[in-house]
Every structure is written in structure tokens, then in C-alpha cells.
């Protein structure tokens, strides 16, 4: 019964989304055609529009109910449900039964639409400052987006489909996914994607009601900021997850799935900066709307592209090519529709206030441009193999291309990012700006000199990366100089910390790529091996049994230098029987200045065991930086929301 109830809830939610769209459309039409003499919307329009909010609220709650019922099916291991059989097993630990509900195609789509529905519920409840027509148009746009997802779920990916006769037990979840990372990583990214689609819905609302201005930007900004925080967290966590789970010490592979999550982040980052200019300075109107369209398109690409099966990936867990055509149709419909609306209405957006080239706005435009260029490189690089295939050539576009093409642009962006916050709004003097930049420039030069002297020269990209990271770190805290720190607004702190996070992360990336030490050995028991400053000795191999896996576990005694204290690391090679898979569980020792990463490989048949050892100086900075970026975003969001609330209160008491 649970499965049937879930399906019923899903159908009802879909029907309400349809109703929400129709009501919003009729309401807006009536509102637009009301007699010019009347003040306020006509009676019919007001009543119809008033119905949209409750419908949006109930739609979200029904989607949540469907998701809850799916989770219940997984937790109870109901083997009469196809999805549970295909992706779960009664022996699985409870956490993975729970998270297994979204560790598959159908469940993840349901999660997506649930979050979307709940976002609609939230807007319907909390958003009070937008003009009503714009808000209703926004909710209508949300319903339109949701309808596509409901149709997709109900017609080609029903998560509640029964299996008759019921299976004796499930086929298990991909062991790579049996990790706490799965419990949090996809929902985090999905909240990000959905947040962007909400921002896009606001843009649609503003375009439909011809109301692109600061009010719309202020309503949209928290959603962009929130989405961006979650995307940042999702990507950071996903990167660390891949790093320790895949077992080769890599943290970013420029793989289509990773690119699919990076592109919405790049677009959201650009949008975030642009929407701030629109909200506070009333500039960059058309840009903001365009970036909202791009960001939405990218979040759709992020959600769907990998699932369509036209690209292969290390992370593609939920591919089913038979759904490909449905997905591509949906993608075309969404992106095409968004672009069409943009093309039709952008003429009605008046130009906002203007500014000079050397100004804060100018730097933000450069930021938007460079982010868009990187986005374009990632997008086209990811899709190019398909283009080449059309010409009959099988082509691979991978890390070397992205490093060479996007790397320099990213470094240029970092330079702009260092300068931007030190410029004045609207108009600044180049000479004075240069003087303000002297200290960061000196720090960057010193850092590069130090790196050169200590290492005797490293590859050019990491070299510039380290220098720029140092300069950016200095420049990003510069806005706090000579300020009363306690009276500095929270969103300024947010900017400072987020920019600092980029510097930290960049330093980690550059350090990892320049200074990593690798040792690959076939080790005999008792034999010491060196990696970086560490000595690693294989003490022995022993079997270990887990809940639904068994493993060979190496005992490695490790010490730093010649007189450090010994400690033990235990990398495993894990065997899962359902489905039959082997995974490497790396054992990582984290120190302040980096990580020692150890992996147990296969035996060589002569009593030796393959060990893969890496010493990765400051690699943790990559994710520490990511966390700082997200923290900066959160402070900014908090500061903005607080200030906006104060503004609302002031208006209310006026």
C-alpha cells in the first residue's frame, strides 16, 4: 500500500502543479486586461491569484509525502518494489537504506522535484515584498518547471513501480555509493540546482510583468546566494568524496559529471555578483536576467546531461539510455523556452545606471565575463566529443585541455578578483587603485620568489597559482584595513571570507599539483618504504568482515622523519558480493601541512603487496577553501536577510 499511496501523492502533486500553472496564467491574463480605470487587480483576478499560494504550498507537501513514502519503502526493504530490489539489499546498514532512496535515478528525480516543491512552498509562505503579479508569475514558472519533472517521473521513471512476484532480496547498492558521502552529497547539489531554478523563476516573473529592477533583484538574491552556498558545499564534499573513495589521490578529473556540477556553480557565481549590482546600484539589468537564464540552463544540464547516457563518466551511476530522448526533449524544452522568453522580453528591459570601465562595476563585469568564458570552455569541452563523433572522429577532451584552456582564464579572474573589491563604485582613478594594490602585488611577488628559491622552479600554472593565491589572500582582507571590525557589515565579512577561501583553495590546488610525492611499490612484509618525509612499513595483511562486505586490510606502520612517533594506517581492499565489486578504501593521515594517502592494491603473486603511497602537501587547503567560500556565502546571506528585514520594518513603521 505504501507504494500505491506514494504514486497517488505524486499524481496529486503533479495535478496541483498543473492547476498552479493554469491559475497563475489566468490570473495574470485577467490582471493584464483589467480596465485601465480600476485601481488594483480586478475582482476575478484577485480571487484567482489568491488561490495560487495555497496550491503551491500543498503541491510541495504532497511531493514531500511521496519522497517520505519512498524512503519508508527502502527502510522497510520492501522487495515487491522494483526500485528497492534494484538498488537495495536487506543486509545494508540503515543509513544506506535511507540514502539509497536517492542513490538512483528515479529516487534522485523525486528528491529533485520534492525540493523544488518545498521551495515553492517556502516562497508562497515567506515572500511578501514583491509586487503580487510578479510573485504569481514566479510561482507559475515554478509550476511549469515542476510539471516537466512530474511528467518525467510518472511516464518514464516511476519510482513506485511494483515487481511481481516479489524478489527474495535486493541486488544491492553500488558499493562506491555506500559511504556517508552519498547521504549528503546529492541532496546538497540538488538544493543548489533547485535554488537556481527558483532564481530563474523570479527572473521569468520579472520578465513577464516587465518589472526587472532592484526590488526583483532583492527578492532573488537570497535564493541565488543560498543555491550558491549549497552548490559550493556539494562540489567541495563531492570532490573530497571522490578523492578518498576512488583511491588514486585525484580530487578533480574534469569528468562530465563533475563538469556538469561545476557549470551551474560558475553561472551562479556570476549571477550572484551581477544580482548584487542590480540590487544595490540598479545596474546590469539585462546581464542579470541573462545570467539567470544561463544558470538555470546549466542546472538543467547538470541534472540531466549525465543521465541521458550520451556521455560516459566515472560517476554515472544512474544512466539509462532508453530515457535519453525524453531527457533531451525536456532539456530542449526548458532551455529553449527560457531563451525564447528572454529573447522576446529582453527588449523591454531598460538600461540601468551606467559606470566607467575602472570601477567596482567594471571589475564585476570582468568577473562575469571571465566566469562565463570558463563556463563556455567547460561546456563546449564537455560536449565536443559528441560534435567530433558527428564527424566520425572519436575524441577525448580531458584534464590537459581544461588545464590549458581554462587555467589561464581562471588565473586572470583571480587577479581581477583581487583588484575588484578595492575599487570604488561607478568611477575610480587607475593610479590610486594601483597604489591600493601595492601590498598585494608585493606579497604575490614575494611568494613567487620564495617558491622559486625553495624549489628551484616548478610548472608554470602552479607557480602562478601560488603567487596569485598569496596576492589574493592579502587583497581579499584589504577591505577590512582601517575599519572598525565590529561595525563592518556581515556581508562585507562574507565577501572577505569567500574571497580568502578562493585563495586558500587555489593554494591547495597548486601545492598538490606541484609538490605531491608518489611512491608505488610492491612491498614485502616488514620492508620500509619512503614517501615524502614519511617512512611506511607493511606489518601484515589481515581479513576483516563488515556488515555487507569483507576486506583485506593492510597494517602500515608510519613515522615522519627518522625519529617521529610510529602510528598505524589501515587501508583496505573491500569486496562486496551484491553486486560483486572490489573497492579500495584508502587510509589517510591528515596533518597540518598535508595528507599522507595510502592505498592497498593487489598482491603480485610472490608474497608482495602493491602499495600506493602519496604525500600531498597542503592538499587539505582545497576543501578548507571550499568550506570558507561556503561560510562566506552564509555570512553574506545572513547579513543581507537581516538588513532587508530591518528595511522592511522601517518601511512598515514609516
Amino acid at each position, binding site marked *: 500500500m505504501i507504494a500505491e499511496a506514494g504514486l497517488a501523492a505524486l499524481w496529486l502533486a503533479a495535478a496541483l502543479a498543473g492547476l498552479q500553472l493554469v491559475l497563475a496564467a489566468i490570473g495574470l491574463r485577467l490582471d493584464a486586461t483589467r480596465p485601465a480605470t480600476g485601481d488594483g487587480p480586478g475582482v476575478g483576478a484577485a480571487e484567482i491569484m489568491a488561490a495560487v499560494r495555497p496550491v503551491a504550498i500543498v503541491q510541495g507537501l504532497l511531493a514531500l509525502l511521496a519522497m517520505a513514502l519512498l524512503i519508508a519503502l527502502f527502510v522497510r526493504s520492501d522487495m515487491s518494489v522494483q526500485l528497492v530490489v534494484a538498488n537495495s539489499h536487506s543486509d545494508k546498514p540503515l543509513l544506506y537504506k535511507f540514502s539509497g532512496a536517492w542513490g538512483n535515478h528515479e529516487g534522485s528525480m523525486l528528491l529533485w522535484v520534492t525540493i523544488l516543491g518545498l521551495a515553492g512552498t517556502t516562497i508562497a509562505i515567506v515572500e511578501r515584498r514583491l509586487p503580487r503579479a510578479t510573485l504569481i508569475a514566479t510561482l507559475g514558472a515554478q509550476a511549469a518547471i515542476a510539471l516537466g519533472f512530474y511528467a518525467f517521473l510518472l511516464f518514464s521513471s516511476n519510482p513506485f513501480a511494483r515487481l511481481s512476484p516479489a524478489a527474495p532480496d535486493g541486488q544491492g547498492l553500488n558499493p562506491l555509493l555506500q559511504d556517508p558521502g552519498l547521504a549528503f552529497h546529492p541532496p546538497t547539489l540538488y538544493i543548489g540546482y533547485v535554488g537556481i531554478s527558483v532564481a530563474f523563476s523570479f527572473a521569468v516573473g520579472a520578465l513577464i510583468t516587465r518589472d526587472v529592477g532592484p526590488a526583483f533583484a532583492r527578492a532573488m538574491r537570497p535564493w541565488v546566494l543560498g543555491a550558491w552556498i549549497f552548490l559550493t558545499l556539494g562540489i567541495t564534499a563531492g570532490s573530497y568524496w571522490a578523492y578518498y573513495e*576512488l583511491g*588514486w589521490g*585525484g580530487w578533480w*578529473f574534469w*569528468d562530465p559529471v563533475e563538469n556538469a556540477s561545476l557549470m551551474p556553480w560558475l553561472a551562479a557565481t556570476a549571477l550572484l555578483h551581477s544580482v548584487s549590482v542590480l540590487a544595490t546600484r540598479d*545596474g546590469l539589468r539585462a*546581464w542579470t536576467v541573462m545570467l539567470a537564464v544561463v544558470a538555470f540552463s546549466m542546472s538543467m544540464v547538470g541534472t540531466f546531461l549525465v543521465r541521458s547516457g550520451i556521455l*560516459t*563518466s*566515472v560517476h*554515472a551511476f544512474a544512466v539509462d539510455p532508453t530515457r535519453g530522448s525524453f531527457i533531451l526533449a525536456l532539456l530542449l524544452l526548458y532551455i529553449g523556452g527560457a531563451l525564447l522568453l528572454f529573447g522576446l522580453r529582453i527588449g523591454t528591459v531598460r538600461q540601468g545606471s*551606467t*559606470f*566607467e*570601465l575602472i570601477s567596482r562595476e567594471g571589475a564585476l*563585469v570582468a568577473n562575469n*565575463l571571465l566566469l*562565463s*568564458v570558463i563556463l*563556455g*570552455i567547460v561546456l*563546449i*569541452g564537455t560536449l*565536443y566529443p559528441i560534435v*567530433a563523433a558527428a564527424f566520425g*572522429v*572519436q*575524441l*577525448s*577532451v*580531458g*584534464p*590537459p*585541455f581544461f588545464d590549458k584552456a*581554462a587555467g*589561464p*582564464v581562471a588565473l586572470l579572474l583571480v587577479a581581477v578578483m583581487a583588484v575588484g573589491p578595492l575599487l570604488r563604485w561607478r568611477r575610480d582613478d587607475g593610479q590610486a587603485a594601483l597604489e591600493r594594490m601595492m601590498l598585494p602585488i608585493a606579497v604575490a611577488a614575494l611568494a613567487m620568489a620564495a617558491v622559486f628559491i625553495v624549489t628551484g622552479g616548478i610548472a608554470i600554472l602552479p607557480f602562478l597559482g601560488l603567487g596569485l593565491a598569496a596576492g589574493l589572500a592579502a587583497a581579499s582582507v584589504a577591505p577590512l584595513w582601517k575599519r572598525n571590525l565590529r561595525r563592518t557589515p556581515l556581508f562585507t565579512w562574507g565577501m572577505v571570507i569567500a574571497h580568502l577561501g578562493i585563495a586558500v583553495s587555489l593554494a591547495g590546488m597548486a601545492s598538490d599539483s606541484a609538490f605531491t610525492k*608518489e*611512491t*608505488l*611499490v*610492491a612491498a614485502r612484509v616488514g620492508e620500509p618504504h619512503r614517501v615524502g618525509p614519511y617512512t611506511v612499513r607493511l606489518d601484515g595483511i589481515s*581479513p576483516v568482515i563488515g556488515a555487507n562486505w*569483507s*576486506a*583485506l586490510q593492510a597494517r602500515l606502520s608510519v613515522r615522519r622523519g627518522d625519529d617521529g612517533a610510529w602510528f598505524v594506517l589501515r587501508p583496505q581492499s573491500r*569486496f562486496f*558480493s551484491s553486486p*560483486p*565489486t*572490489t*573497492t*579500495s578504501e584508502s587510509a589517510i593521515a591528515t596533518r597540518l601541512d598535508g595528507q599522507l594517502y595510502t592505498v592497498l*592494491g593487489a*598482491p*603480485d*603473486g*610472490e608474497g608482495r603487496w*602493491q602499495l*600506493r603511497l602519496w604525500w600531498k602537501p597542503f592538499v587539505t587547503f582545497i576543501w578548507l577553501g571550499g568550506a570558507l567560500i561556503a561560510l562566506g556565502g552564509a555570512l553574506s546571506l545572513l547579513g543581507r536577510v537581516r538588513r532587508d528585514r530591518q528595511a522592511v520594518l522601517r518601511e512598515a513603521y514609516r
Partner: protein
Amino acid sequence: MSVSYIRHPGFNPGSKVPHEQPAVGVRPVGSRIKSGMTAVIVALLLATPALADSNLPPARYANTQLRDPAKEQQARALMATLRCLVCQGQAISDSDAEMAGDMRSLVRTRIAAGESPKQIRDSLIASYGEYVTYDPPFNALTAPLWLLPLILIGIGAWLARGLFRRQRS
């Protein structure tokens, strides 16, 4: 990660004796483990066809570095740009697949023999097509890809030019 690795039929790594076709089976390991664990481990290994591509031990340099750090560095950089042809989008430096191991061994053997990374890449492209390199060579088909950053920056600058007021002199 893909569960079954299919050996590429045309792959013949250097001077090594060609492998047999993959057979799902057990690596000859169980017999060398201390007897106390044997039963458990044999049971474990029987349940793990994923790594059991063939009955042979891995190629010589599949997981062993070259003695000369400079050469190993060269080999490592090259391996990171070569695609494992039987995996789901992994470089041969990041893959557990047996073929990736064979290709790593091939790269290290030829680097040790004094070949340049470019020569090795070119010869791999000659045998397997451009699919094998993650660093697409510049030609008529890939020119738009490589010129992309410049094209995009140009378009962006053109779009942005209307935003700025003339600088006052």
C-alpha cells in the same frame, strides 16, 4: 565504476607476451596466504570477478616506478593524459583496470628506453586513434575547441562594450 573491464583486442604492450583473453576467475593468490586465513580469503576472492581480468600477474611497470625520478616524472605526466580505453572516463594513471596497468607499463618501458613522451603519444594515437589522448591534437576538427577561449573573450568584450560610459579625460 564499471565492474567488468574488457580487454581491448588490439592491445599488445611492447615486448611483453600477449595476454590471454580475459577469463573470470581467481588470481593465483590464495595459496600464498598463511593457511589460517586461506578459507576466508579464497571465499572473498571467488566473489570478486572485478579485478580478475586474467590469470597473469600485472605487467612489470604497471605499478612500479622507474628508478630515475626525472623519467618517472615524465612518464607520470604522460600517463595522466592517456585514456584508459576500457574504463568509464579514467586516465590510465587513475585506473585499476588491467589494461590501464599494461599501458602504464608500456609508457614506462618506452620512457626508460629513451623515447620522448611525444613519440609515445603519437605512436599510441597511430594505433588507437585520437580517442586515446585526453589532450586533443590541434587539427582542423579541434581548432574551434582550442581557439575557444579567445573566441569567447572576444564575444564577451563585444557584448560588454555598451555598458561603459566614455572615460572622462
